[in-house]
């Protein structure tokens, strides 16, 4: 049976640094997805990451309205400064635009805020209440903060992206401790590491991702196809787990 691939870690839009071979338009993304056999992608806009979330999120709404297999993920901020909607308004806006996943970039180099309760508490409470999956890169949050986040919001699904190949000594104990932790595959690259992780914690919390347009989409797909796991486990990783997470959102 042909595997269905649903990419959980993808962005689109112009950035200020480009790499040869990369791309920024949704049309090229769709071409690449078709070429690599990826049917759907959860996508946030680069402008929301690199410039300002409130200006970038509408751009991904426009794209997802045009292309049915591009599903929007919003980049969010705490509301205290007044530059971003408060959680009650935000959740209504998300509902209106059918946004079922969010992403954060809290590091000092990016959006530069605290995830502690005084800052992000009400925002994270809202996400947890509605079971809206929160996607975050390891470099954006750090291992100490991820532990605190998972512990404080036990019903909030957190998808850790771009973990790198040196992360297993953190990932294993965190996944064994917290049922609400999920990991994305594009840079989960220790040798035979997905097979080993599956043996330790199962395959229900491993999600296929590419990190396109920066990193290779074709390699990410081939990686999952060539996993030495039963087909039903590969199907969960390739798309089933993300579809389940999105279906559990209570918006």
């Amino acid at each position, binding site marked *: 049976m042909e595997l269905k691939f649903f990419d959980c870690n993808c962005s689109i839009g112009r950035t200020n640094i480009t*790499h*040869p*071979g*990369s*791309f920024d338009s949704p049309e090229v993304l769709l071409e*690449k997805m078709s*070429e*690599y056999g990826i049917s759907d992608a959860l996508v946030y806009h680069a402008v929301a990451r690199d410039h300002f979330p409130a200006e970038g999120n509408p751009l991904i709404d426009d794209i997802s309205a045009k292309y049915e297999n591009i599903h929007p993920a919003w980049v969010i901020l705490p509301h205290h400064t007044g530059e971003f909607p408060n959680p009650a308004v935000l959740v209504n806006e998300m509902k209106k635009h059918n946004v079922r996943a969010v992403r954060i970039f809290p590091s000092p180099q990016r959006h530069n805020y605290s995830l502690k309760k005084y800052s992000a508490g009400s925002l994270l409470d809202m996400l947890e209440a509605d079971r809206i999956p929160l996607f975050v890169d390891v470099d954006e949050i750090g291992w100490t903060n991820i532990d605190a986040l998972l512990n404080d919001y036990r019903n909030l699904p957190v998808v850790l992206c771009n973990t*790198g*190949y*040196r*992360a*297993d*000594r953190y990932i*294993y104990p965190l996944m064994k401790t917290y049922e609400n932790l999920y990991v994305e595959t*594009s*840079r989960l*690259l*220790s*040798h*035979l*590491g*997905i*097979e*080993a992780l599956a043996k330790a914690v199962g395959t229900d919390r491993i999600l296929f991702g590419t990190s*396109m*347009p*920066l*990193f*290779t*989409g*074709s*390699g*990410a*797909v*081939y*990686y999952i*196809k*060539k996993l*030495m796991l039963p087909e039903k486990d590969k199907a969960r990783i390739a798309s089933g787990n993300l579809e389940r997470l999105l279906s559990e959102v209570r918006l």
Partner: protein
Amino acid sequence: MKRRIIDCHCHLGSYFNFYVPGHSPEDMIRSMDNTEVEMACISPHMSLTSDIVGGNAFMLETVQNHPDRFIGFFTYNPHFPDLMKTELDKAFKIKGVKGIKIHQGTHGTNLMNPSYRYTYDFANRYHLPILIHTWDIQTINEISVLSGEYMNATFIMGHFGAVPSNMIKAADVIKSRKNVVGDTTVSMMYEGNIEWLVSMVGADKVLYGTDMPFIDPRVCLGRVLASALSDSERERLLGQNIIRILEGVKDYEI
């Protein structure tokens, strides 16, 4: 003609800084069988990080146990020049040892360390490939100089400079020297990177390498298999280039 895939840049064994789930020779063979990789060039992690003799001994044992799957690359540590002379002699008496590995980064030095001259001379005499950890501009510049002095050795720029800005500089050196090539071994596997490297230096100058088991090789192989290269270019990159280099190695004079 059957495709031949030879991984020119592999290691072996466990590692201090992170968990390597599949680190044994048998794990690597399982991985290679899964992706139809015929052979892998190996230098154990131990020889890069700690015991140079123990690490090279692990390489020799593995090559002798699996001569049809592994090609030995002897790791040279310049901090032990006298020891390295005897160890080199011991290693190259084994038929499956075909190259030199230099990791000046983990050995805390640079390629101009005078102690390396012995191994450059050795590689030049026997037309050996020298796989060098090539992560920065200094190393690229040093390879540019050394490859002009040791014309019979083949300098493999492992990691091709690692990031696009360095890859452009590495490509300049690869294009200007007949005996310099680069490999595909990177952890940051950029979209379109394979086609870009080949467009800069030609398919004869790019070798397939992955860092297995430091990094899982499947993502790298997938991006090569799906790349917009011609079949001929892909075959050269995946295996024929390193085969050509290894076929040029001269027998060691015992």
